[in-house]
């Protein structure tokens, strides 16, 4: 557990150092703002230290597909169906843009 949280801290530091301030992220502020609710359960920047899936750097296509399926009740879940129903398709696209734009490599 300690090693995991250390790795996570390191990963976040990498993100901070390599990236621009969160609010100036190239994927746009709207997606970042929507993502703030996700990160309370999925970890800062979507980097989860535990059983909740990581969102950081996941592909845009995968995130959109999964969230739409949750929203329509077409994918098994515990709580994600109840949460995804609170977002429009446009919200989902913005959230997917944000998390898919995060990578561990420094962007030019």
């Amino acid at each position, binding site marked *: 557990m300690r090693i995991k949280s250390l790795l996570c801290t390191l990963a976040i530091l990498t993100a901070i150092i390599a990236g621009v301030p*969160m609010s100036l992220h190239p994927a746009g502020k709207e997606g970042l703002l929507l993502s703030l609710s996700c*990160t*309370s359960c999925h970890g800062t920047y979507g980097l989860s230290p535990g059983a909740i899936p990581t969102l950081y750097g996941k592909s845009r296509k995968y995130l959109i597909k999964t969230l739409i399926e949750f929203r329509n009740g077409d994918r098994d879940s515990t709580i994600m169906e109840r949460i995804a129903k609170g977002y429009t398709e446009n919200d989902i696209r913005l959230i997917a843009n944000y998390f898919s734009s995060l990578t561990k490599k420094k962007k030019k």
Partner: protein
Amino acid sequence: MGAFSAVSALEAVAGYPTPLLAAKQQVVVIGGGFGGATAAKYLRLMDSNLQVTLVEPKRYYYTCPFSNLVLGGYKDLSEIRYGYDNLSRYYGIHVIQATAARLNASSKKVILTDGKSFSYNRAIVSPGVDMRFDKMEGYNYGIVNKIPHAWKAGRSTLLLKKQLVEMRDGGTVLICPPDQPYRCPPGPYERAGLIAHFLKQHKPRSKILILDAKEQFAKQALFTSGWEQLYGHMIEWFPGSAGGKILRVDAGEMAVETEFGIEEGDVINFIPDQWAGQIAHESGLVDESGWCPVDQRTFESTIHPGIHIIGDAAIAGAMPKSGLSASSQAKFTAVAVIDMLNNKNPETTSLANTCYSFLAPEYAISVASVYHLSGSKIVKAEGSGGVSPINANLSVRRAEAIYAQGWYDSITQDMFG
């Protein structure tokens, strides 16, 4: 006030030279729990030019979420303990271990109990709740060692745990939940299940009576069917109208008086009614309800501008008083504060809450919702939200227990990591 009064918190603590910081905007965050720690971190993540000071009296924070698992014998108190080192080391937050006595909104100053003070451009106050020792006959601060509320995790949790360990087999545990509104609506019922989990293993002839001020409670159908499945008739719940309403607490006789008579308890967990934490009262941030009215678009006090109140103490529309509500509000408010410091119209976004409750270490249920602004009020997003299905099998309950632990690992990392 003395020489400290005009000096910034950072200078006071770290001795940095003034010119370096003269142009920086100061945000002070009062309280280092789910709201405050998250707000401090996200302010710095979103604007590294801000000078952020976090004032928190305690060296370690014990999370209320998962403290019921300590009572159930499934977690140790050390597993729910967090410090503030990462926030200062990795995020450049100036953590001051001190008690803030009050804020002066007109001079924009925080006054500490030791008399020192410092200035801010905007303040975020996340004071949590205080127990009301003025409302129930026979209940006062002097009896908390005999009748611990354990509604703030830490020493009180251990005290209640010790009483459960020392109780005779065949004893009665009284749990007396407060009236609305209070911190963590499903908390008393999670507690009942986890205490039952402990008693079933070690003192199986014992009983738990829940004497409730209310007529119904959060996730009620899920709790009652789960309790029966897991613990038979060990837990009995009495609503206010059926003998649950308490008129008097008698610590000497270890009993409570209800409208239906006297109930004796070998262990009594009376959880008092609550209101906003003390600094909110001292700073004139509460209304007649004892809670803090805010502009729900920014969480700025409607009484004192420049001060934002988040978490349990705030009147936050449809959102319940929970750790995740506070975390979500903290980020939402950090965005608003940064916009307002830059003289921009605050951008708003959605908010969310998820509360997991355990009925046993491998059996959990949840409630989740997304919230957004409708005009100037926070409302539940239509179509979102709800509780776990009532007819789910044990594998679903077990999956929720795994995700509850995952939630805890994530949110504590998001606050303190």
